[in-house]
């Protein structure tokens, strides 16, 4: 087994670096009028030629979030790199609320010292300031980490720039055959890496709560099958290959169980698989209906799922250890693909109206439903780990692309990758 693994890995190491590293790029496609003005001064570089422009990474993160409007570089009145050089009155004139300065230095060109300071321009006070030491290869990730600090300091919500995305790509090879890949990238689309390649479709990637593993569905053995794969080693294991459907994996919040859809007893039902023991527990029991797409409430007590037991797909909720299911969605005749916000208060789903498919969010307490997207080809919504954005798949000019919308529907982002069909997005948890 291990030997087989190593051999496979070897083949991959040989050819994967040659794979095209297509990049997802984020653009804001709507609604950032409430964005907070911030001045991001290019970091001072003391006699170094850093391999990455760290202030550009921070600026790009904050701008692409739609929550910030960085001042244009030519509008910066001065280029301070430390507090003694800052004249707050100048920055107040520019109506910038925040001011970010910093510098980067290196003695040996291999290790870099980076520091930043974030100021409240109106009070003339430092809000955050840190110093780091990183190898050249860590500068990009550090940029995201600093952007997270700025975001959290100024909005009060967790930043998500250090998180990752998982998604499935499809390309048509020169022989006309389709090639599928499960990829992960940084939240800004950089640093894409291939987790799995196959000539057969790949579906439904799901992050483990610690962000170290992905569960997903493949058809590589001629039928649907659920695998769990460790991201660092690439080691993977088939966890469900029963007769019938094996699909829709969802990790329990403690990472010890997977909810799955299995039709081993003749009809698609939701089961919970305990990963350590392999023990299966059946959660739903409705012989006439499709029950699928389980997702856990953040406290692990309940499972939400899609069922057509009422004649049309709707979202239901059932206690995770079994019990009576109750219907959660009532508006419209097609609600599917549920995901629950990290605070447990909101449900996002695909909501169809007259054969068109939208991303909607429902307040679980009041039941109020809001449609967030305009194009009628949306699917596979997934909450960002701070609950502020919803990532989903849609179509643009006949090609699958990813997009994101803020939970209030105001900010719209599009993440596109040139020449590739992209779908089935899943947002990683926050880094622990």
């Amino acid at each position, binding site marked *: 087994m291990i*030997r087989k693994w*190593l051999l496979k*890995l070897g083949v*991959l*190491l040989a050819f*994967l*670096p040659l*794979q095209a590293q297509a990049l997802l790029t984020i653009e804001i496609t709507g609604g950032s009028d409430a964005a907070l003005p911030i001045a991001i001064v290019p970091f001072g570089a003391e006699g170094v030629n850093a391999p990455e422009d760290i202030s550009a990474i921070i600026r790009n993160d904050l701008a692409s979030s739609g929550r910030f409007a960085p001042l244009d570089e030519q509008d910066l009145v001065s280029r301070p790199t430390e*507090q003694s050089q800052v004249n707050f009155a100048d920055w107040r004139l520019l109506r910038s609320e925040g001011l970010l300065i910093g510098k980067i230095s290196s003695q040996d060109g291999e290790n870099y010292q980076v520091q930043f*300071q974030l100021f409240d321009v109106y009070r003339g006070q*430092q809000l955050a*300031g*840190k*110093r*780091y*030491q*990183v*190898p050249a*290869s*860590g500068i990009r*990730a*550090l940029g995201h*980490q600093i952007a997270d600090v700025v975001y959290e300091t100024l909005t009060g919500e967790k930043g998500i720039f250090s998180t990752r995305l998982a998604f499935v790509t499809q390309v048509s090879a020169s022989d006309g055959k389709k090639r599928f890949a499960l990829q992960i990238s*940084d939240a800004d689309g950089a*640093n894409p890496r*291939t*987790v799995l*390649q*196959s000539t*057969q*479709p*790949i*579906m*439904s990637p799901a992050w483990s709560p610690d962000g170290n593993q992905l569960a997903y569905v493949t*058809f*590589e*053995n*001629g039928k649907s099958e659920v695998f769990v*794969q460790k991201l660092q*080693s690439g080691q*993977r294991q088939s966890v469900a290959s029963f007769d019938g*459907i094996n*699909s*829709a994996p969802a990790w329990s919040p403690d990472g010890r169980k997977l909810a799955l*859809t299995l*039709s081993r007893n*003749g009809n*698609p039902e939701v089961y919970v698989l305990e990963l350590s023991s392999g023990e299966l527990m059946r959660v739903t029991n409705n012989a006439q209906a499709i029950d699928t*797409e389980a997702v856990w409430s953040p406290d692990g007590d309940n499972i939400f799922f899609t069922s057509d037991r009422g004649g049309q*797909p709707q979202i239901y909720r059932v206690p995770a250890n079994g019990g009576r299911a109750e219907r959660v969605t009532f508006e419209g005749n097609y609600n*599917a*693909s549920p995901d629950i916000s990290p605070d447990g208060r909101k449900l996002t789903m*695909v909501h*169809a109206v007259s*054969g068109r*498919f939208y991303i909607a969010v429902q307040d679980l307490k009041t039941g109020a439903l809001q449609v967030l997207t305009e194009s009628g080809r949306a*699917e*596979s919504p997934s909450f960002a780990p701070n609950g502020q954005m919803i990532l989903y798949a849609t179509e643009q000019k006949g090609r699958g692309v990813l997009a994101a919308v803020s939970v209030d529907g105001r900010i719209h982002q599009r993440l596109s990758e040139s020449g590739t069909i992209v779908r*089935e997005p899943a947002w990683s948890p926050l*880094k622990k």
Partner: protein
Amino acid sequence: MNRFKFSALLVALFLLGACSGNTTKDGVGDDVLVEERNGASTSGVSDQNADGRDLGAEASVVVGEDQFSSSELNDPSNPLSNRIIYFDYDSASVRPQDQAIVEAHAAYLGKNPNLTVRLEGHTDERGSREYNLALGERRALSIRQLLMLQGASAQQFRVTSFGEERPAVDGSDESAWSQNRRVEIVYIGR
């Protein structure tokens, strides 16, 4: 390459990852300008870049079972040459015009109990992928039930759903969708 070399490579990769851990000095001071704290913590910064390359897996390609072929199945004037049943949107009911095709296959399977068929259920691309995977199975099971009612026996079937994942026709209009909502009857002998 042999096993030892790969193990060595893995160890090397692991060490590489371990060595590239960043020291992040994280000051959370209120009024301290830039605070520096001693003691390096390998923060999350390095984790993502530690391997620095693709460590992926390649799904093995399964060679399909041998398909069975006969003169009856290949004769275009024989209803048995028709081995794709199409469906209406979100439906698993066989349409009246396709009943004769299903009957012909049921009779053929009844006469040839040594034959096995794989029923592959498919849907169009609209709506939830996971729901469609289940719908594809429902369509295949609905064909199976009809075939069994009309003479075939339970051991003669394998049922697989591909949901919307393997369209017969690429495209996002009713013409493509109607050709993708289907069950394919694949004779695989025994």
